[in-house]
Every structure is written in structure tokens, then in C-alpha cells.
């Protein structure tokens, strides 16, 4: 198993390389960049701008720039004698801006060591800001995934057991209908319903459910534990889980129907077991196996959906952070979120493959 895991991780290296390359090319092509972000003041002269550009290494050849972003420049331009000024350089010039003085030693560590630089907009290290927002996204994402599993799986099982019944047909229609609803519109309609229409109809002054945020506005400190602010997570989690429910019920139904015609099911029936035992202990347990492979794709879906859901409900997570960063041209933040979600996705795929082999004794690692 360790060998298999290692091989899968090695296989993902080319993919990771592709992702970083793509992200870096996009970032370099983008309008506005580090130079503009640092020299946006009205007093900066073109000379100063050029100097900043040279110091940042924007004029270096592309492969060098990419390498610097990937691995940092603290090993490219070093200070060996401890006077705070660089005296050794490889790949990049010691005196980048051409004023006759050597530059300060490189301080960037590169994204492979978790240094995504500073946000252009907030002027703070990107990693710190991401750390503050991961919890919110995990909270929303795992709640939605849990709802998706708890509703989707039983619905799928029942639809397969009572195939072609009214319940089965209703489930199939619902799953197409749900996948055609724009997720952001569903959010808006729910907000409209619970904050304007229903309160008005019931003669209330306040919204029934809060419209935005993870908890009531507080001056200091974070949010209270989740059980004290359930009303805040209800709507976003429902919106985010809607398509997960649809997808899981569809997959579970298909998987149950595959299992239905297996020999062991017939044997269980023939032994005289009750239908409930046959379906749930012999059927559903085996039908769950293929669903392990669905974990990876579900993760990407949740992350994409989180970007929209978090934006509508002003949920302070990674998704809304990235969407805002895109409109603010805050590229270090965008790159960080994209690469972190991509790594999470790849890990999700590897994990679901390993899980698949672990659960199903008929498949061996090789």
C-alpha cells in the first residue's frame, strides 16, 4: 500500500508542474502586477518604477522568474558575510537595477516552501490570510458534504429498491431539476424568501434567517462555537449541498441497481433473509464501494460551488476571498487559492483511489 501511495504521489508531480506553470503564465500575462501594485502612488517617477521593476526581477528571463516564484530567491542572491548586503549570486545579477550597488539578499522562499508572497491589496503575507479563512470553508464544505451524504445516499438506495415507483421517478426528475438551477440564483431566492417575503407575510420586523456572514457581527475575536450560530450556516449549507444531494442520489441509485443482479443478492434472498436485511446489509454495503471514487470529483465540485455560495452569503472563506481577489487584481492571493485548491483536489483523487482499494478486497494494490 505504501508503494502504491508513493507511486500515485509521484505520478501527480507532472500534473502539479503543469498547474504551477499554467498559473504562472496566466499571472505574468495579467494586467496590473507587482510593479504597478508597489508604484501606484501619484509621485512615483518612471525611473523609480523601472528601478522597482529591476529589483523585483520582472525583466529576468521567464524560466528564471518562474524558478524564483517556485523556489524563492534566498538561495539565488545570498549574503555570506553578514553585513546585510548580498555578495553572492547565481542565475540572477548581484546588482539588478544597475546603480553600481549590490542589492539586498533575496528573502522569498517560493511557493514550494509555502511562501506565496504578500497580498497587493492587504499588504500582508498571503499564507497568514489563508490560514484565517480555511476554517470557515472547511466548516461550510464539510457540513454540505455531510448533508449531501445523509440525504443523497438513503434517497438513492430507496429509489433503487422501489425502481420505477413514483418515488424513483420523482427522485430522477428532482436530480435533473436541481442540476439545472443556477446555484447563485437559488441562494438569492432563499435570501429573498427568508429575509423579505416570509417576514413580510408573517408580519415580522426581522429576517427569519440571517442573510449573510458566519456569525453575528462581533468587534473582537472570532465566531462562537458552531452550535450557537446554526442559523447562519443553514442557508449556505443547503445551497451548497443541493447539487451534492442530486449527484449522490443518482450515483447511489445506479450503483444499487448494479449490485441488485449479483449472485450474492440472490443467495441472500434464497436463504430467506428479510428484504430489509438483503437490501441494507448485502446490497447497500457493496453499492457504497464505487462511491469512494466519487470523493475526488465531489471535492472539486464543492470548492467551485463554495466560491459562489460564499460570495452570495458573505461567508468569510477561501472561495469569496479568491473571487474578491480576482476583481481586485490581487494575483498572489488568486494564485495561492488556485494552487492550494488544486493540491487539495489531487490529494482527494489519490485518497479516493486508495480508499477504493482498501474497502474492496477484490482489488489489490499493484
Amino acid at each position, binding site marked *: 500500500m505504501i508503494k502504491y501511495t508513493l507511486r500515485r504521489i509521484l505520478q501527480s508531480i*507532472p*500534473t502539479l508542474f*503543469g*498547474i504551477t506553470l*499554467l*498559473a504562472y503564465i*496566466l*499571472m505574468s*500575462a*495579467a*494586467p496590473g502586477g507587482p510593479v504597478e501594485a508597489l508604484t501606484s502612488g501619484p509621485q512615483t517617477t518612471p525611473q523609480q518604477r523601472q528601478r522597482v521593476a529591476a529589483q523585483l526581477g520582472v525583466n529576468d528571463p521567464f524560466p528564471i522568474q518562474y524558478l524564483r516564484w517556485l523556489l524563492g530567491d534566498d538561495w539565488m542572491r545570498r549574503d555570506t558575510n553578514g553585513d546585510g548586503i548580498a555578495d553572492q549570486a547565481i542565475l540572477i545579477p548581484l546588482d539588478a537595477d544597475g546603480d553600481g550597488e549590490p542589492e539586498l539578499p533575496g528573502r522569498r522562499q517560493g511557493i514550494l516552501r509555502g511562501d506565496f508572497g504578500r497580498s497587493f491589496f492587504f499588504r500582508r503575507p498571503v499564507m497568514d490570510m489563508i490560514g484565517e479563512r480555511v476554517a470557515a470553508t472547511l466548516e461550510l464544505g464539510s457540513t454540505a458534504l455531510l448533508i449531501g451524504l445523509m440525504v443523497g445516499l438513503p434517497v438513492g438506495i430507496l429509489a433503487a429498491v422501489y425502481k420505477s415507483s413514483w418515488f424513483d421517478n420523482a427522485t430522477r426528475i428532482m436530480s*435533473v*431539476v436541481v*442540476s*439545472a*438551477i*443556477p*446555484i*447563485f*440564483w437559488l441562494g*438569492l*431566492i432563499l*435570501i*429573498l424568501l427568508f*429575509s*423579505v*417575503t416570509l417576514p413580510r407575510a408573517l408580519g415580522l420586523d426581522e429576517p427569519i434567517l440571517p442573510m449573510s456572514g458566519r456569525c453575528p457581527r462581533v468587534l473582537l475575536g472570532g465566531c462562537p462555537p458552531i452550535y450557537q450560530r446554526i442559523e447562519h450556516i443553514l442557508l449556505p449549507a443547503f445551497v451548497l449541498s443541493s447539487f451534492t444531494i442530486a449527484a449522490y442520489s443518482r450515483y447511489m441509485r445506479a450503483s444499487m441497481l448494479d449490485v441488485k443482479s449479483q449472485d450474492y443478492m440472490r443467495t441472500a434472498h434464497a436463504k430467506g433473509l428479510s428484504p430489509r436485511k438483503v437490501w441494507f446489509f448485502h446490497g447497500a454495503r457493496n453499492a457504497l464501494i464505487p462511491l469512494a471514487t466519487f470523493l475526488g470529483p465531489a471535492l*472539486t*465540485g464543492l*470548492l*467551485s460551488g463554495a*466560491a*459562489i455560495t460564499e*460570495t*452570495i452569503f458573505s461567508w468569510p472563506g477561501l472561495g469569496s476571498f*479568491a*473571487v474578491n481577489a*480576482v*476583481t481586485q*487584481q490581487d494575483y498572489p492571493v*488568486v494564485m495561492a*487559492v*488556485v494552487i492550494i*485548491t*488544486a493540491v487539495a*483536489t*489531487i490529494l482527494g*483523487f489519490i485518497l479516493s483511489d486508495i480508499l477504493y482499494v482498501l474497502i474492496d478486497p477484490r482489488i489489490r494494490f499493484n
Partner: protein
Amino acid sequence: MATQTQTQVVKLDTKQPNTGNGQSLTKLAIRRLLHDRLTLLAMGVLLILTVMSALAPVISAQLEVSSLRTDSSSTFLPPLSPGHLLGTDDIGRDQLSRLLYAGQVSLLIAFIAAFLSVTLGVSIGILSGYYGGVIDDVVNWVITTLTSIPQLFLILIVAAVLSPGPTTLILVLGLIGWTGTARLVRGETLSLREREFVVGARAIGASPLRIMFIHILPNLFSIIVITLAIDIGSLILTEAALSFLGVGVTPPTPSWGNMLTVSQTYFNLGPWLVVFPGLLIFITVLCLYVIGDGLRDAFDPTAKD
């Protein structure tokens, strides 16, 4: 002489699966479709929506409304107001007219982008499935890379890097969305490559391009049509989401997505501004998904009549 033999081989092959009564799969599928009321209904609704959007100028002129004329004395008129069937928005523009013009933009973007992405996906899929080897490895690498980034994020950065607008959006959606189609077509080509009619065509000296696009492509017809219907649907959703987030179609050009961006600030004054654009997106996408499902059933060679 050689070409004649080839076409005969192909024809024989398309006739063979499933039908005892000498009908081609496509004819059979069309006959099944004509009996499928739900799919026909979806096609009808989609056709009506498309025609109405295309006729937006005519309909607006007939109703004596304009999608551009602002009127500060008649803002937030509710639906069914005199002169404004679906009401007016925050600066007094007629909503029906705006919805129709927005339909032009949203439908056009989704249709062209879907054609682009399916064309790309089919070409890349056939090439990598037929040639295999290094081409296949490179294609697989590109597909894995593109699908490892949550698609919305990927489109979001690309759309933000290039300046927003309908043309950019078509290119971005078309150039990113081909991976699923390519995967499907590649798998299908892998199995078709070993079939007798392809081996036969190769034996009489047909060029690889001819085999790929004259012999294999027609057998992919059902996959292509189904993917196209579903792709247009999901692209309408993606375009709407991007425009809603402000990186797709930007005002003053209306699209169903960006009409919702403005409307979300007027929950109290004009809830109907939130309802209608989303409803149109939903109906259009639902129709396309139903059509996709209907086509899948119609082309299913194992289905019985």
C-alpha cells in the same frame, strides 16, 4: 473503386447493430425521439425562447418598450403594469425587453462556446485515441492538469486576465471546457480503432486523416450530439455565474447573469427583478438537460422499442 468499397464497409457496419428491420441507428433514434413527448416539449420551449430572443428588437418595438430607455418616473414597476408586462428595473428600463436582449447574449455565448469546445474535444480525442503513444500521453497530461483545478477558479482567473466581454468569454469557455468531451471521444476511438471497418480501410490504404474523420467520426455522432446539448446547458450556467460575479459579460450589455448582480441590491423594492432572469436560466438549462437525456435514450443501442 477503392472508395466505393470503403463506403460500403461503413454502411454495412452502421446498419448492423440492433435493428433487424434494416433501419440505421440514426433513423431509429429520430423515430424514437418523435415518440418522446418530454424531449419534444423541451425542444419546443427552447425553440420558443431562442426565437423570442432573436426577435427581441421586433417584440420590443411591437410592445413600444425599450431595453435602453431609462425613465425616472417609472422605476420598480411590478409585473403586469400597464405598458410593462414584466415590470421595470431600478432605472425604469422595461424588464421583458432586457430579458430578451440578455437572452441573445447568453444563448449566443453558450452555443458558440459549446460548438468550439466540442469541436476541440472531438478533434483532440480522436487524434489521441487513434495515434496513442506520445500524443496520447501529452493529451492526458493536459487533461489531468486542467481538471485538477476547480473549473470555476480556472475560468475565473483566465476571464479576469483577459478583459471581460462576450468574445473573450466564448474563447475562455471554449478553450477550457473541452476536456470531458475529449476523454469520452478518446475512449470511444480506442475501441473503434480495432473494429473491422477501420482495419479494412487501413488495409486498402486509406490515410490516417481519412480514417479518423470519414470512418470514425460518423460513429461518434450520437456522443457528439448528446455532449453538445448538455454542454450548452452547463455553459449557460457557467456564463451566468461568471457574469454574476462581474468577470463575464459586463453592463451595459445585459446577460441573464449580470441582471441578477444588480437585482440583489433591490430585494425590498423589486423582488421580481431577482425572480425572472434566474427563472429563464433555469428553464433554458433544464430544457437542454432534458434534450440531452432524451437523445441518450434515443441513441441507446440496447434500448427496445
